[in-house]
């Protein structure tokens, strides 16, 4: 029965992926069922942009469901929710009127909420679910209000009518701000990201894979729609806002990821970072569009879409890999892992592929999309406005810093979790996962490689989607079958050549060593300063790895040192136990959410006087309200 649900999810995913690819290639479709719901009924339209995201949903759902087939620890709870989650995500990009969109959006949020709360025994999951529910519904409120205003001012709840309507600039800006806030919550944009690092670790791994790989992308989808499509051509500050939000998210996301010890939370923070990178590309596209440079606008949008697709591939892969690790060891604490490369070679190989891809190293896919983003940003001097150029410069700096830190972050994740000697019994007893999860991870690893090597096929396809959305006539030339060529001769990149060069260099090093160093290899145990005993306690830990970053970015982490020493009662020189913790404090909790919640609590305490506990009094409120309304009506 359980298996059936996930097999069904695989089929749904495949179908959605096929339809999505069809849509990307230009097959348009429209379904309308006006009778099903009030306010315009169900209305679904397949266009190229919807196709991209539908394909994303479909092709990420396939490995995630496959993975779930092999995860024997899953609970019966959440099967229906999972199916609903996948289905709702597939409907969101297709929705072509306000009601369909909001219903699918809300269904997606609720289903994922149920899935986050799947382990109802743990306080952590309950807190995660609570924060997730509050944040996501704050976002939904923004969306509902924005769409209702839009519907009222344009006189229609159909997307097509929104495009045709010419709103006053003030009204358009208000609607854009509301909708952008709603989508930004889902996309995990700083500082609206607080739900993400809680909800992702709490959910089962195949669900966190989908939430991180696909669901938050639908926030980006919404931002693309409102900035370039539904509301017509926007002012430049929309692009500036998106670009700056992306820059902040990228840097803060990776900084948070680099110090966390929880394997899945690191991945969650890294999702925030990657959403930031996507938004930097999108913001650049919107800015170019506002400045009347359609070719560059398409380039920015292509970079954003490409990175969205790539992130879906490698983040799904990494979450599934993390899920396999958590399943095998029972812990998410990196300081309790280690040595998995010997015990879980398959998972390790796949995870390494994902880590290299997300660290944007060639020839994998992350490199290509970040390269495209850089190329889009670097041509900003064509806009001759110093203020805008400054924004672009900030974006470039943020992207560069993020790229470096991301490499460090994934060196840490991979090195600490998979290499060296196991740091705990659980890690020492780990075992390789079942066949379906391995198959799922392999599929995604191959996808990462293919999206990198096949850049010359993927990028033009996405560029076509972008130019269709923006309305550029004729498709953008992006080089030939072997080389990506940006903006005439501005820059070019040939991933296959890079790959071949890297392979040759690698072979050269290995071969050279084999020839020149023959017979001079001596194997001896790891140097441990001459100690007799080597224990896992001597290993480099995730905490230690993070410490330099904590010092350099002291102002951001604001770390606290807690040392607790228990001495022997006879003498304080005989230490029996030392506990050391070096936690960081969240800037956003302390300076944004805590004051906000405190003020809410204060005002609620005032209003609480009304809640006396007497049912009669409550009924009297009703009677009084009724009378007042009738008398003054």
């Amino acid at each position, binding site marked *: 029965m359980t298996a059936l649900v996930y097999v069904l999810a695989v089929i749904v995913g495949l179908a959605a992926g096929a339809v999505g690819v069809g849509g990307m290639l230009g097959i348009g479709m429209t379904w309308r069922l006006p009778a099903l719901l009030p306010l315009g009924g169900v209305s679904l339209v397949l266009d190229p942009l919807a196709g991209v995201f539908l394909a994303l949903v479909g092709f990420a759902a396939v490995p995630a469901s496959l993975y779930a087939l092999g995860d024997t620890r899953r609970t019966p709870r959440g099967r229906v929710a999972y199916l609903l989650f996948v289905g709702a995500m597939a409907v969101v990009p297709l929705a072509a009127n306000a009601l369909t969109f909001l219903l699918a959006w809300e269904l997606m949020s609720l289903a994922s909420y149920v899935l986050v709360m799947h382990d109802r025994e743990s306080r952590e999951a309950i807190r995660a679910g609570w924060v997730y529910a509050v944040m996501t519904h704050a976002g939904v409120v923004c969306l509902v209000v924005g769409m209702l205003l839009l519907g009222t001012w344009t006189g229609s709840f159909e997307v097509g009518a929104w495009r045709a309507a010419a709103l006053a600039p003030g009204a358009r800006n208000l609607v854009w701000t509301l909708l952008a806030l709603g989508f930004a919550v889902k996309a995990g944009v700083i500082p609206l990201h607080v739900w993400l690092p809680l909800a992702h670790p709490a959910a089962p791994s195949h669900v966190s894979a989908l939430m991180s790989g696909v669901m938050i992308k639908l926030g980006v989808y919404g931002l693309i729609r409102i900035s370039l499509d539904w509301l017509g051509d926007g002012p430049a500050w929309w692009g500036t806002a998106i670009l700056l939000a992306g820059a902040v998210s990228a840097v803060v996301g990776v900084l948070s990821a680099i110090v966390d010890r929880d394997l899945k939370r690191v991945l969650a923070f890294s999702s925030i970072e990657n959403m930031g990178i996507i938004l930097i590309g999108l913001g650049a596209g919107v800015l170019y569009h506002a400045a009347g440079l359609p070719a560059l606008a398409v380039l920015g949008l292509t970079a954003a879409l490409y990175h969205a697709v790539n992130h879906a591939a490698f983040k799904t892969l990494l979450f599934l890999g993390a899920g396999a690790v958590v399943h095998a060891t029972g812990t998410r604490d990196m300081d309790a892992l280690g040595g998995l490369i010997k015990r879980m070679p398959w998972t390790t190989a796949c995870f390494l592929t994902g880590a290299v891809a997300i660290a944007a190293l060639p020839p994998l896919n992350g490199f290509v999309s970040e390269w495209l983003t850089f190329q889009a940003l670097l041509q900003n001097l064509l806009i001759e406005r110093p203020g805008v150029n400054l924004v672009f410069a900030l974006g470039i700096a943020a992207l560069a810093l993020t790229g470096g830190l991301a490499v460090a972050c994934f060196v840490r994740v991979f090195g600490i979790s998979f290499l060296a000697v196991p740091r705990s019994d659980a890690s020492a007893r780990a075992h390789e996962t079942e066949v379906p999860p391995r198959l799922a991870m392999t599929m995604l690893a191959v996808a990462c490689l293919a999206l990198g090597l096949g850049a010359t096929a993927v990028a033009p396809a996405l560029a076509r989607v972008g130019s269709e959305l923006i309305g550029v006539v004729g498709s953008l030339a992006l080089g030939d079958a072997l080389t990506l060529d940006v903006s005439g001769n501005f820059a070019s990149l040939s991933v296959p050549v890079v790959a071949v060069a890297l392979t040759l260099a690698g072979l050269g090093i290995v071969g050279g060593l084999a020839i020149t160093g023959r017979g*001079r290899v*001596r194997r*001896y145990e790891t*140097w441990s*300063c*001459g*100690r*007799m005993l080597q224990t896992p306690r001597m290993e480099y830990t995730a905490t230690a790895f993070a410490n330099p970053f904590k010092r350099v970015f002291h102002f951001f982490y604001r770390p606290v040192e807690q040392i607790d020493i228990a001495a022997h009662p006879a003498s304080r020189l005989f230490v029996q136990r030392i506990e050391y913790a070096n936690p960081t404090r969240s800037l956003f909790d302390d300076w944004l959410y805590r004051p906000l919640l405190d003020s809410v609590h204060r005002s609620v305490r005032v209003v609480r006087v009304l809640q006396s506990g007497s049912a009669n009094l409550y009924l009297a409120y009703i009677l009084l309200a009724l009378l007042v309304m009738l008398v003054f009506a």
Partner: protein
Amino acid sequence: MLRQLRAALRAGVVTEPGVATESAPLEVVGARLREEIHRRFKRSLHIRQVDAGSCNGCELEISGLTGPHYDFERFGLHLVASPRHADCLLVTGPVTLNMAEPLRRTWEATPDPKFVIAVGDCGRDGGIFRGSYAVVGGVSSVVPVDAIIAGCPPSPAALLAGLLAAIGRRP
């Protein structure tokens, strides 16, 4: 930072002027060392110092080499932090029982080709600790020794001369 700068400016130079006459033999040895190291080790010799139970007298003299007077880094000599980086082990002490195994491991961890110099009378044969129940006695009883610099302790100048001799003897 301003306070530090002010303090530095106010205090001026507090070191005594160096004695140039004494350094003449040192410079001669140094020039030959540099030449030998250049020729045999392609510019630099990395040394890992191992204290195998020394009284720290030898260490005091060795660290004197790194001071401003001798400053042996200018001749191409470096003390390194791990035997993995070293060409040469500089071993002091009579090799106590507890240090015998770590010394052996250090020697194993040093990549080939390598050579070992025993420093001080203790390193040569156990010195005044010879015959004690707590020492193995002499570096050569644990690892193969290529050269010995005697003295209790040997002066920095003697150390440099010994190093030169040890290097010069190598093929």
